[in-house]
């Protein structure tokens, strides 16, 4: 069939919205009509080249934070049928590899192996082609910047049909990543002092996770005033414009003890900034690295002595160290019950044709999250 998608042909270029050819789903795959897709900073990382080598070769269809409706299922698909509403996990969960089998589907071995190919998990070939027949790769095996896509069932999590898809799509990456960074990776507990460095689509949800987990102080650090204000709306107790400003205020925010948990959720990870933020952590603190550092960055400026002397822990976290099949439905329940705010996260919506404007707004700090809405 023919559909429309936002294609990226090279680093530094704009997204090109064009007609593409889409093959029907093969065994284990489903055709999904996409209804909404978040514009996450990781797609911007494709444009800047920060993710070079870790994702699909070009040309590719961007987008990995999406939700839609199943139109057709290939052979041997279990548990999904036409009409089902789904959120995509930006990492698939095969349910059988050693990582999935031990409760870490965010590290699914199947997803890890297929990611850099950008091709289908099932047989390594492409279902998406340009109008003149060139194979297209998929961001995170999904390609949600399109009216339709074909993906493997292990990327799909079925959700209730009464949930708004323009909110549910955020569960495919940003919300789970941020919320889980606080709840699972940092293991925020009642009474904790928590600092969240970077209050965008990820950090805003780390603030929400920390709040629900009972943090006493939640300091959101971001240079953009609008983001600091949004963080306060979502549960932050203090905000600072920079790490340096937060350092100076440690006496006020944590009685000089330092934060118990520091969660790094900047637009782009940076070894020097991490080294600076490391000092926000107190004794036995956990410093969680959620934001993506450029793949070419080889070192970080963390003072090793304080790992030992203050027993600090430096912890990486992917997709909030969460499990999509449990956490996406659970977070949607929390949304329904008013314990998780998704509405405030969506700053602006765009049509697919307006995608470049959406990313421009992200770069200018105007959006917590911009969301593409499909007809």
């Amino acid at each position, binding site marked *: 069939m023919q559909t429309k998608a936002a294609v990226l042909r090279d680093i530094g270029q704009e997204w090109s919205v064009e007609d593409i050819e889409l093959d029907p789903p093969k*065994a*284990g795959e489903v055709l999904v009509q996409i209804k909404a897709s978040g514009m996450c900073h990781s797609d911007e990382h494709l444009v800047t080249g920060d993710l070079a080598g870790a994702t699909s070769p070009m040309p590719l269809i961007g987008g990995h934070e999406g939700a839609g409706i199943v139109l057709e299922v290939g*052979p*041997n698909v*279990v*548990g999904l049928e036409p009409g089902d509403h789904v959120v995509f996990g930006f990492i698939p*969960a*095969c*349910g*059988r590899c*050693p990582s*999935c*089998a*031990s*409760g*870490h*589907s965010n590290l699914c071995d199947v997803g890890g192996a297929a990611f850099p190919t950008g091709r289908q998990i099932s047989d390594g070939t492409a279902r998406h082609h340009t109008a003149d027949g060139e194979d297209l790769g998929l961001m995170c095996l999904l390609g949600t910047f399109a009216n339709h896509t074909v993906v493997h069932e292990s990327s799909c999590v079925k959700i209730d049909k009464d949930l708004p898809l323009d909110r549910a799509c955020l569960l495919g990456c940003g919300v789970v990543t941020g919320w889980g960074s606080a709840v699972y990776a940092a293991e925020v507990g009642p009474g904790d002092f928590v600092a969240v460095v970077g209050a965008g689509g990820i950090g805003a949800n780390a603030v929400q996770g920390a709040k629900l987990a009972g943090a006493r102080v939640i300091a959101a650090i971001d240079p953009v005033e609008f983001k600091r204000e949004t963080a306060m709306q979502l549960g932050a107790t203090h905000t600072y414009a920079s790490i340096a400003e937060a350092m100076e205020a440690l006496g006020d925010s944590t009685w000089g003890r330092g934060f118990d948990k520091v969660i790094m959720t900047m637009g782009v990870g940076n070894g020097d900034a991490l080294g600076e933020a490391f000092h926000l952590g107190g004794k036995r603190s956990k410093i969680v690295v959620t934001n993506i550092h450029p793949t070419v960055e080889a070192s970080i400026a963390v003072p090793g002595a304080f790992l030992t002397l203050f027993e600090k822990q430096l912890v990486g976290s992917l997709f909030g160290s969460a*499990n*999509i*099949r*449990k956490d996406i439905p659970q977070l949607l329940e929390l949304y329904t019950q008013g314990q998780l705010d998704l509405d405030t996260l969506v700053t602006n919506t765009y049509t697919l044709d307006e995608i470049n404007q959406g990313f421009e707004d992200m770069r200018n700090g105007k959006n917590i999250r911009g969301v593409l809405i499909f007809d």
Partner: protein
Amino acid sequence: MKSRAAVLHGTDQEWQVEEIEVDAPKAGEVLIEWKAAGLCHSDEHMVTGDMVPPQEAWPLLGIDDLWPVVGGHEGAGVVSEVGPGVTSVAVGDHVSASFIPSCGRCRYCSTGRQNLCDAGAGAFLKGMITDGTSRHRMAGGGPELTLFAKLGTFSQYSVVSEDQVIKVDTDFPLEAVALVSCGVATGWGSATNRAAVSPGDTVVVVGIGGIGINAVQGAAMAGARHVIAVDPIEFKREKAMEFGATHTFSSMEDAFPAVMEMSEGMMADKVIMTPGVLYGELMALGTQLAGKGGTIVVTGIAPMTQTESSVNLFELAMWNKEIKGTIFGSLNPRADIPKLLNLYRDGQLKLDELITNRYTLDEINDGYQAMRDGSNIRGVVVHG
């Protein structure tokens, strides 16, 4: 196809080796030729009735008729045929049984607790996990069969869901694989995972059968300072010493003062309850053997209708003790069965030494008599 199988027609009967009919596997199913099956106490619990749901509860559980039952849930074999849509195994693969399915998708599987997979809910129903219909019946148009744990490894062949087989390397002896699929994992995980034995701990294991011996093995591997094995049978106590026990006693009463002395009055950090049948009164001394902040792990199967056990709740609260249940040692079959087999390959886990006697399928009642007599750590049926 036809297969010979050990069938139980009711409680307090012998196993009957009879011919059964096995249908071809449908979507998501596999036909397995079982090569080895462990004689686990849980099958015996069907004979004694300890694990048989009371008949008045059958309608609630959706059971029309529980009987007849093909026994066996500890096993290993070779994939003989695969139904449509099966992706994790192919014909000729060697597989371990997994007495709890792991669908990989439910809330429990998704969070690293495959031992609690929701697909295990219909264990006593005749229908397959896949579509609710049966593939097995008595030969000659007889009644449909219940497969114990939906596996029935006491049959030469059975059709099971893909979710209940785990591919293993072909160089492992299938008898060893069979043991890991239930008893070894359950005992080892009870110590290493559920009790979380750590270096320097004092650990008591109560009951040294196919489960307890592996709790001993797990506790020793996790660095326990004292591993105290309790069993009335001398042969089992000797066996426990081979598997890493540091002390043995014939009863909890005898163990009590000794544990007090060797722990300088602090008693055990971890107590693991693995008797053949876990009667409630055993919990009185079981909990007292644990000291302040101690953990008591309940692994052994208690009679299904038993609702009371003797626990001093004052001590439980004042000494901050905890009692934890476990199934399958709280392990994940797909991750941990291969892991345990690799430990065996590296010489760090004893499996061959667990097998006391081998039986043909026709000798299965001899095997269970030996279990009742206490002369087996583990008996194994080797299918001809």
